[in-house]
């Protein structure tokens, strides 16, 4: 199993509450573009490659590379097909992808709480 997919499997388990939230962030998910892809796919349920490219402001090549990472980690499902004569690529989140995004957002919120608590402790 690759390092990336190992990391993605870790996201399915939320780290213990006493562990620093940074340790709960998964590099596969936390990367800016991939986090954007997961967010758009979560809200859009099923999104087309072109929509994703425009929404994230990426080149086709760059987006394809990030999608390959997410697909390898089994966080997204990619379907290719035709609509009329046009080739289309559709993307949707797998259950693991949905959980990974949820975990990421939870860790980010925990991190914000810790930062805010730290700054209020230092002020007092």
């Amino acid at each position: 199993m690759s390092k990336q997919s190992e990391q993605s499997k870790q996201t399915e388990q939320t780290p213990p509450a006493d562990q620093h939230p940074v340790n709960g962030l998964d590099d596969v998910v936390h990367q800016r573009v991939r986090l954007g892809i997961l967010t758009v796919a979560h809200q859009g349920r099923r999104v087309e490659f072109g929509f994703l490219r425009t929404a994230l402001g990426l080149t086709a090549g760059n987006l394809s590379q990030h999608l390959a990472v997410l697909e390898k980690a089994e966080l997204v499902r990619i379907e290719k097909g035709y609509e009329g004569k046009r080739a289309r690529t559709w993307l949707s989140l797998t259950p693991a992808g949905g959980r990974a995004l949820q975990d990421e957002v939870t860790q980010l919120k925990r991190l914000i709480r810790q930062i805010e608590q730290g700054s209020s402790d230092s002020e007092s």
Partner: protein
Amino acid sequence: MTDASVPSSATPHEVLARLGDLTRRVRSAQRGTWFPLLLLGALTLGGILVSRLTFNVETLPCPASGPATGSDCTLIKQGSPIYWPVGLALAYAATAYFYIRRSRNRGVGTPVRPYVLTGIALVGLATATAFWILHQGPGQPGSRVDFWGLHLDPGSGVTMFLERLAGNAMAVGLPLLVLAWVERNRALLLLTVVYLAVELVPLTTGWAGIAVTSPWSELPCFGVPGMLLLLGALGFGLAELSGRRADSS
């Protein structure tokens, strides 16, 4: 790949704000609120014409047990039992088609399924209620109304409220609440609350100088909610247009 392992350099606040912004943009691309409002508004205004064309006055002998025994009572019949079920079912089917087509064109999924399924289920329920009442036969003046086994006084406030609730408030208003929820659309929620208030509050025709026995007596009952839905459609349509212009500029 140059940035595959580079984590986000932004603060957690900035990352969450960016995700929130992305989510808002996707929601905005998924919405097509103006279309169902336009259909429902047009259908509601069409109800005025149907009421006018089906208006019928009958004079029947008043029931023996009532206070007006021996004299004649006037029975007004208005409205088609087919117009609303068929019209609303077609409106929900057209909305589903519109959203699916839009989803294909824009490349992003649609959350409309709960709205359409709720709409069709509630149209079925409203139709069953209407046919149940129709099945009981024309109500004699002064007699009680059989509403799913409840024998209600037709003149009481509770009966009138239940009749209004079992009509368009249920078949149009409740599905719109579902649409506001699936689209996370606060403006639609506000419009729906106003619509439900209009449908559930009794609208009389006296202020407009229209008698209850007039063929146009249903004008405010359909005209006010119909215009509200059409104005909503116009507002959401304009908002969508300006949002698209802002995105493209």
